[in-house]
C-alpha cells in the first residue's frame, strides 16, 4: 500500500535564506523525484516562509524525504498531505485578443459560467483570471483556446491544511532545546 505512488502536497516552513531553495530541491533531485509545482511565500508568522511543493511519490518515500528536509538547518518543519487533507487552489491567467471579446458572444458566456474574472481590458487584449482546481483552469483553457490565446500561465499550487500545523509551538520547542 505504502509503495503506491500518490500526489502529495509538501509544506515546508523555513527561515529566509539565499540558497535554501537549492538545498530543498537538491533533496528531490538526489532521489530522482520530479517537482510538479513549487510556490514560496511568506507564512502566517513574521520572517517565516512557506514552500508548497507538489510531488508524486510513494508514501514511504515522502516520509523519508520529509525527514531529510527537516534535517536542513534553516527548515523549521515540513509536512506532507494528500488532497483530502488540504484546501488547495491554483490561479491561471489567460491573455486573449480584445477583438474576440466583442465579436464572439460565446466568450462572455464562457467567462461567466466558469466564474472567472476579467482583470484588465485594453483595446488590443484582455486578461482573464481563474482560480480553482486544476481541472477548472484546464476546462477554461480548452474553452478559450479556439479564440486564440496570446498567453497562458498557471501558478503552482497553494494550499492550507485542514488540521493545524502549530508552527509557533514547534519554534518554541526548538528554542528550548
Amino acid at each position, binding site marked *: 500500500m505504502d509503495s503506491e505512488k500518490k500526489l502529495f502536497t509538501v509544506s515546508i516552513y523555513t*527561515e529566509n535564506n539565499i*540558497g535554501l531553495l537549492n538545498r530543498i530541491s537538491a533533496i528531490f533531485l538526489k532521489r530522482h523525484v520530479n517537482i510538479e509545482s513549487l510556490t514560496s511565500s511568506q507564512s502566517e508568522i513574521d520572517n517565516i516562509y512557506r514552500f508548497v511543493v507538489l510531488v508524486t511519490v510513494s508514501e514511504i518515500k515522502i516520509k523519508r524525504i520529509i525527514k531529510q528536509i527537516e534535517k536542513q*538547518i534553516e527548515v523549521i518543519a515540513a509536512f506532507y498531505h494528500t488532497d483530502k487533507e488540504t484546501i488547495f487552489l491554483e490561479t491561471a491567467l489567460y491573455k486573449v485578443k480584445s477583438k474576440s471579446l466583442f465579436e464572439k458572444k460565446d466568450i462572455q458566456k464562457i467567462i461567466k459560467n466558469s466564474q472567472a474574472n476579467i482583470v484588465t481590458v485594453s483595446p488590443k487584449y484582455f486578461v482573464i483570471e481563474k482560480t480553482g482546481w486544476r481541472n477548472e483552469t484546464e476546462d477554461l483553457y480548452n474553452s478559450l483556446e479556439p479564440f486564440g490565446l496570446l498567453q497562458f500561465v498557471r501558478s503552482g499550487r497553494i494550499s492550507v491544511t485542514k488540521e493545524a500545523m502549530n508552527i509557533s509551538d514547534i519554534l518554541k520547542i526548538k*528554542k528550548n*532545546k
Partner: protein
Amino acid sequence: MISGAEAVIKSLIEEGVDLIYGYPGGAIMPVYDELFKYQEEINHVLTRHEQGATHAAQGYARVSGKVGVVTATSGPGATNLVTGIADAQIDSTPMVCITGQVASHLLGSDAFQETDIIGISTPVTKWNCQITKASEIPAVIAKAFYIAKSGRPGPVLIDITKDAQFEMMNFKYDKCTNVKSYKPVPELNIDDIKEAAKIINRSKKPMIVWGQGVILGNAEQEFKNFVEKSGIPSAWTILGLSALPTEHSLNMGMVGMHGNYGPNMLTNQCDVLIAIGMRFDDRVTGNLNSYAKQAKIIHLEIDPAEVNKNVEVDVAVLGDVKKTIPLLTDLISKNTHDKWISKFHSFDKIEYKKVIHDDLYPSKQGLTMGEVIKIINKETNGDAIIVTDVGQHQMVACRYAKFNESKSNITSGGLGTMGFALPAALGAKMGAPHREVVAIIGDGGYQMTIQELGTIYQTGAAVKIVVLNNDYLGMVRQWQQLFFDKRYASTEMINPDFVKIAEGYYIDANKVDKRSELKNGVAKMIKSDKPYFLEVCVEKEANVFPMIPSGASVSDIRLD
C-alpha cells in the same frame, strides 16, 4: 577597526582553532596575509592539493574530536575540496571549510577562478553560507562551528568574497549556542527507553550492532557498561571499530560485506537487534528483504532522518547516546547469554579454519595482507591509530587490526574515498602527536594523493606509511574475478619505484617482499621516530573473505 580577513582569523582563534590545513590562492590571499601575522597562534599546514587538506582535517577531527578547519581559494581550490566534504558529510565528521570567492561585484560574471561553490557544495554540506560583507564574518563563523560539531556532526562551508575580506569592520565575537530553526539533539522520550528495556529484558538471543555514534557521542564508557551489564554479544560497523577494545569478551567482530561470519549469520537468527549510533548502510545490511526479519529492532539514534530510512524499527530511541544508553542500562536486568554467545564462537571456529588461519599463517609463498596486519599489531601492541584507505587492504586491516583505545580507526567508510589515508594519517598524527599512527594503504589509493608525502616531509609528522602492493586495484579485481569472469579491465597497475619516490621526499623508506624480512621491516619502521615508508609486496591475486555478494542476504555470506 580590523579587516574582514583579520576577523576570520580572530574568529577562528575564538573557536580554539590552532591548526588549519589549506592552500593559498588569489581570492583567499587577504586571509593568508593575516595567517602570516598570526602564525604564533595558528599553524597553517600547506598540503600539496586541496583534497589533501580536507582529508588531513578529517583525520585530525576524527582522532581529536575537534573541528577540522580547511582554507582554500575560489574556483579550482574550492572544487578540489568537494570529495573531502562529501566524505565528511557521509561519515559525520565535523569540519569547517573556508573558501575565498571573487569580489562581490564580479559574482555571476564568470570572473577568473569564479565557481558557484555554494551551489556545488549544497548537497554535501550540513550547512553552507556565502559572505559578501565583513560585518557578517564573526556571526557566520560562530554559527558554522556550532553547526559542524553539534548533534550529528558534519561539514560546513563558508565562502567569503574578496572584497569582504578587505572591508574594515568592528570585531566582536559571540559564540553561537542556538539556531532558531535547528534542533541538534531530538527530544528524549523515556517511554521509548522503557519499551526498549522491556524488549531487551525479555529477549533470549539479543545482539548489538554499534556504529560511529558511540564514538561521536563520547559514549564509549556508557556503551561498555551497557554491554557488560546486559551480557549481549556486540558487533561493529566499520566506523564503530575501536569504540570497544578488540579483546573484549563481548566484542564479536565486524558486520557487513567483509565482516565476520558469526555476527552476519546470527543477524538473521537473533530475536532482538539493538542498533546503536549506526545507519543500516547497504554494506552492513546486504539485501534488506532478508535482513533480521525475525528480530525486533531497537534503534538508538541522534538523527531522526536515519530512523526507518533503510530498516523499519520496532522502537526508536532518539537522542544523544551519551544520555540514552545509561538510562537504558538502568532499566535492563543484569544478564549473561553464554549459550547464545557460544553460537558466535562456533561460527568463529569455522571462519578461523576456512579464512583467518590462512590469512594470518599462510603456507603459500606470497605474503598476505593479514600477516602484515598481524605483525603491526604485535609491534604496536594494539596501541596505534590505524588509518586505512579504501579497498582490500582496508577490509583486511579492519578485520585484523587490534585496538585498545577508541578513536583509533580512521577510514573512509561511507564514501569509500581512495586517496583518503595518506593525508588523513598526517592529520591524525597532528591531532594525536603522542600516539603511533600507521597508515595502511593500497598501491592504487596511495597514488591518488601521493603528493602529500611533500606535506609529511615539510611538517615532519612521524607518520608510518605501509603500502600493501599487489600491483592491482585489488578489490575491483576481486569483483572482476568473482562476478565478471576474470575480465581484468583496467585494474592492473604498472607501478613506479615507491621507495625511490619516498626517498625523493627525504622520507626513510624500505621494501619487503619476503616473509623472512617482514617482522624486522615492520619493527624498524615502528622504532623510527621520523616519517617512514614501508612497501610490502603482497600476493597479487588474493581475495578478501568472508564476503556477502552485493544484493545477497547477510546469511548468504561466502567463506570462499
